[in-house]
């Protein structure tokens, strides 16, 4: 077992654990954001650089700090390693810069993007982005293409995390989709515009951290924050049949995999479950899913919001620090 300290929290982990995994075991705000790493996809990670952290002490044996920031998702811990994430100004500054890089060519078309509300890039830029942009040049742009009849690709929004490529490679046989060209004109595409037709291709939509790959059966049907995510299942011969059904009223609007707190699906699901089973009668509903309080998706599901018992006249409206911290004046219950 290796001992590693991240932002002053110490934890013991197995040899071979990466810094990111160790941070996820600690949980909370010490977890670096990960836009390209996906624990269920081999070889993923190392590309987006949002998870860069500072290694202030290499190991107990060699306490020298590492000269550069390292990608926490691909760097294994050493015994006695000391890592700084949000306790390092350098890391925070660099993360801001990475977000800026990711956004300069991003269309910022959230108002018309299906991913809005559940987009990792949106969350990342709320947490680490700047208000204004220093980028004045023309953004690169691509045409929207269909890859298969169920998936649409908006290359403009892609951050080239390679997750969908690994998904196509590792989950499906006969991979026909990958990266063409290089540099900032590289694009996700299929080999000579062939359709991606595989029983598990729909998972590319779930792994995509942004709105580059979207579900055509759900396109423009609804905004995610109007929907209630429910755990649902059915017996399926191809996959586990355990999904999240996104419902409004008695209607099923879309089916996705069940995403955990780090935005990764628990299990990959098949295309039949995802695209074809849209009737309530197809599913056994287990109950509502837990959604992070911070997520806009939970915005719509506040069950009750206690009004402050007394409304003070404006001029006397002072709130004690304790009250303010505990929010006792304005309690929101989920």
């Amino acid at each position, binding site marked *: 077992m290796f001992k590693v300290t991240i932002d002053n929290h110490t934890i013991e982990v197995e040899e071979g654990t990466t810094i990111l995994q160790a941070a996820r075991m600690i949980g909370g705000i010490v977890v670096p954001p990960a836009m390209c790493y996906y624990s269920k996809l081999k070889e993923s990670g*190392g*590309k987006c*650089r949002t998870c860069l952290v500072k290694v202030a002490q290499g190991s107990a044996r060699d306490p020298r700090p590492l000269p550069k*920031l390292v990608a926490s998702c691909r760097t294994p811990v050493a015994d006695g390693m000391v890592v700084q994430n949000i306790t390092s100004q350098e890391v925070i500054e660099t993360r801001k810069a990475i977000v800026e*890089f990711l956004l300069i*060519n991003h269309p910022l078309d959230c108002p018309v993007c299906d991913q809005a509300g559940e987009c990792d890039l949106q969350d990342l830029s709320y947490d680490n982005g700047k208000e204004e942009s220093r980028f004045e040049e023309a953004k690169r742009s691509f045409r929207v293409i269909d890859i298969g009849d169920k998936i649409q690709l908006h290359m403009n929004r892609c*951050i*080239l995390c390679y997750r969908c490529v690994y998904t196509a490679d590792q989950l499906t046989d006969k991979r026909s989709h990958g990266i063409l060209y290089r*540099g900032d004109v590289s694009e996700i595409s299929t080999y000579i515009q062939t359709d991606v037709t595989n029983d598990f291709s729909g998972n590319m939509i779930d792994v995509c951290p942004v709105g580059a790959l979207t579900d055509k059966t759900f396109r423009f049907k609804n905004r995610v924050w109007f929907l209630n995510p429910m755990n649902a299942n059915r017996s399926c011969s191809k996959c586990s049949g355990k999904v999240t059904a996104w419902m409004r009223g008695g209607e099923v609007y879309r089916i996705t995999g069940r995403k955990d707190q780090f935005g990764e699906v628990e299990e990959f699901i098949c295309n039949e479950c995802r695209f074809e089973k849209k009737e309530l009668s197809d599913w056994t509903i287990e109950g509502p899913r837990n959604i992070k309080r911070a997520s806009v998706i939970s915005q719509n599901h506040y069950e009750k919001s206690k009004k402050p018992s007394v409304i003070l006249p404006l001029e006397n409206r002072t709130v004690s620090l304790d009250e303010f911290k505990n929010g006792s004046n304005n309690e929101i219950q989920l």
Partner: protein
Amino acid sequence: MDRRILLNNIAVPGIRTFEVFRSTGGYLSVMKALKEMTPDDVIEEVKKSGLRGRGGAGFPAGMKWSFLDKKSNKPRYLICNADESEPGTFKDRFLMEKIPHLLIEGMICSCYALGAETGYIYVRGEFKYIVGILNEAIREAYQNGLLGKNILGTSINLDIHVHSGAGAYICGEETALIESLEGKRGNPRIKPPFPAVVGLYGSPTVVNNVETLCNIGFIVNQGGSEFARYGVGKSTGTKLISACGNINNPGVYEIEFGLSVREFLYSEKYCGGIKNGKELKAVIAGGSSVPILPANLILKTAAGEERMLSYESLAEGGFVSGTMLGSGGFIVFDEDACIVRNTWNLTRFYHHESCGQCSPCREGTGWMENVLHRIENGLGKARDIDLLVSIAAKIEGNTICPLGDAAAWPVASAIRHFRHEFEEHVLHPESCKNSAIRQLDNVQIRRLENV
């Protein structure tokens, strides 16, 4: 300061052929190594020689060899990195074109030392004609029993294959090269693991530059300590410098480490001074990615010492007032050269060559090119200069491979040493003799303003 190791016989007619090469003492080292030395002896001599990688980073070759995973029972590979694509560098091409057997000789000794039975030469895609030269040399070596099964009657087997790249600068990065050799997209791998442990086809692999390998023959023949008598301090041996730009005698020169930059620039034996009697303005001393230095700092260090061609002397002063030896591409600018235009040109190159895998390099290189293009075309704003500094600083050190650094350093150093020139371009774009703006008409300018 003008002893040579590599190019002693370069002028012998027909040195490209096996017969002539052999008659000048070629391949003696193979006999010596295979018959009189153990593999570890060879590694020991290379360590003693202090030979450092000639591809750019200058990492000690013997040390690199000793990292090779000895426990693995997978086959081992030696790869010769002949993907020489750094703008301003053309010394490996010269070696392979003129004296290919020197490389084959070095590779045989190195493969023997490393226990590799297969070697690859990864040749830059644009060097199509060199593939033929190398293959011919390899054919001759097979014919003469120096390659193939049971070399010179020993139990040693070795095959060398030439592989032509498809024209990507990034494939000069060793892990991208390995990916490309495996038939994949040339994206650098995320390290660790390093190639010495998990390299080509998952096997322990050493990747060395052409010039590095060409030195091995001499080291085996004469011994590591004899090699270490060449050069100064930790810069042992000699270095090929490819000189280009506004000089009288551009070309490839072998210098002994320790030669002063002044002599190299002005002596008739080497560059022969600045063309047309102009003044020296700046030098990029080690291939396009190293920091550019103005005339005063390339000739003398900030401390007032004479600057020499060696790893240490060129790096004297860090990036504030120094640079790097890099790959030895020596690019000279005279007083008329426009630093802004040149910097823009370099960013154009790095933007084009970025593999696009990691965000700082993919987005940052294009951004820098765009901003510099604007400045060069008379549409720059005062704040653009600091913006460039900031973009470069955020790329540097945050990328998967050194291409990000290589793209950031030229911009950062050009602004560090020639800030006034950038400001001048922003304020009075038309005053630059080279400025592209002077060649545009009003319509074109308006079109530029509208983007």
